[in-house]
């Protein structure tokens, strides 16, 4: 058995949930279709899930379902970009994106300029990597360009950002998730970030 997958039966047992709940959450789009992985085993067809993703998601649903309706939860968890907007000054005030990053990447924008969610997301992702100390400012600029150019192509589908470095030369890639990716030796994966998770985190800042 692949260690990063969990079977449906084990999942239900580990989390103490029922089949009905799982199907209900799927109907409500709380669990994305692409996490249901069908594999044939010696007992016939079985469904597996990416272990970390599904366990985290179910914890999240169980924690939030007392406060929010399932539909509200679905809005929060969906990878589709919401039409939230925010002024640049508020972004800085609420510390969603650090002022250093904003000065560097959005110096020419006025404080009252309103960013759409996708713009915010790009800044958020770049800032996240900068704050983690994994990326230089110059690389941040390239990442921002990469995101602007390619992220809209995923059109609401889940995707990951991969940041690699080999012999000091860095590169970025966006790939649809979940997918497996292997590199030649010498390539260091500096970061792999789920954009869907970033969207969720960023949406969480509106509350």
């Amino acid at each position, binding site marked *: 058995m692949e260690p990063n997958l969990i079977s449906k*039966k084990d999942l239900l*047992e580990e989390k103490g949930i*029922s*089949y*009905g709940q*799982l*199907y*209900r959450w*799927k*109907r409500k789009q709380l669990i994305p279709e692409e996490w249901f992985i069908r594999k044939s085993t010696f*007992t*016939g*067809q079985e469904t597996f899930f990416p272990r970390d993703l599904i366990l985290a998601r179910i914890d999240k649903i169980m924690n939030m379902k007392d406060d929010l309706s399932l539909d509200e939860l679905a809005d929060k968890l969906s990878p589709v970009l919401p039409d939230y907007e925010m002024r640049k000054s508020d972004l800085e005030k609420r510390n969603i994106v650090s002022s250093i990053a904003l000065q560097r990447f959005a110096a020419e924008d006025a404080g009252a300029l309103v960013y759409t969610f996708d713009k915010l997301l790009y800044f958020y992702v770049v800032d996240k990597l900068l704050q983690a100390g994994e990326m230089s400012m110059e690389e941040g600029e390239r990442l921002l360009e990469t995101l602007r150019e390619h992220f809209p192509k995923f059109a609401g589908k889940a995707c990951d950002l991969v940041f690699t470095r080999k012999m000091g030369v860095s590169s970025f890639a966006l790939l649809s998730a979940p997918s497996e990716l292997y590199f030649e030796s010498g390539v260091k994966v500096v970061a792999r970030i789920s954009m869907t998770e970033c969207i969720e985190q960023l949406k969480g800042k509106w509350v």
Partner: protein
Amino acid sequence: MSQQQFNQGDLIINGVSTAGGGEYGRVKIDGVGTVEGDIVCIDFDCDGMTKIRGALAAKTMDADGMFRVEGDLSAERSVIDGYMKVKGSLKGDSFSINGQLRVGGNCEIESFRAEGAFEVSGLLNVGTMDVLLHGRGKAGEIGGETIRVKRKSSGPLNKLLSWVMSRFATELHVESIEGDEIELEYTHAEVVRGNRVRIGRGCSIGLVEYRTELQAHPGAKIGKEAKIGG
């Protein structure tokens, strides 16, 4: 579907006609009507032979007669009498059909009630499902909270027909059924998994897994049964 109020006009077809898709308030088709393209409306009501060459999204739907949708169908509340075929997927809050239903993709319905025959190629995901079979039922998988399948006691003609041609047998054929409360009759499945499971007459199940309770009719065939969890 979006909650916005359409101030578009209505689409009314009487007789034999073809209309274009688009956004409408109310759609009423009597006779033989074809809609070319996707259609979004609040009320959809058709009688006779209706064909949608595209997807349909409606708030309420009432279809009688022969009704075909070539794309996806989503409707909050649907009442269907007659034959309905959806090539894509089917979504809704409440869906009730008397007659025959065929869906090419997956179904996601909160409350599904059917009397007659049905065929769903993909996953039939339901909150509650209440089916009274008069003909053959078929689905890839069924999953949900409450799943109840019963059979109408068949008359002599039906018995003869199902004896001659087994594909007309009044039975449900499905790979797997997973749910909380499951009650089955005349069902052939490889696997049934649930909390409370009742396997009624005429069933043939390869493996039953249950958490709290299993009741089996003496005439039902069960290959293997297992109690799991606490």
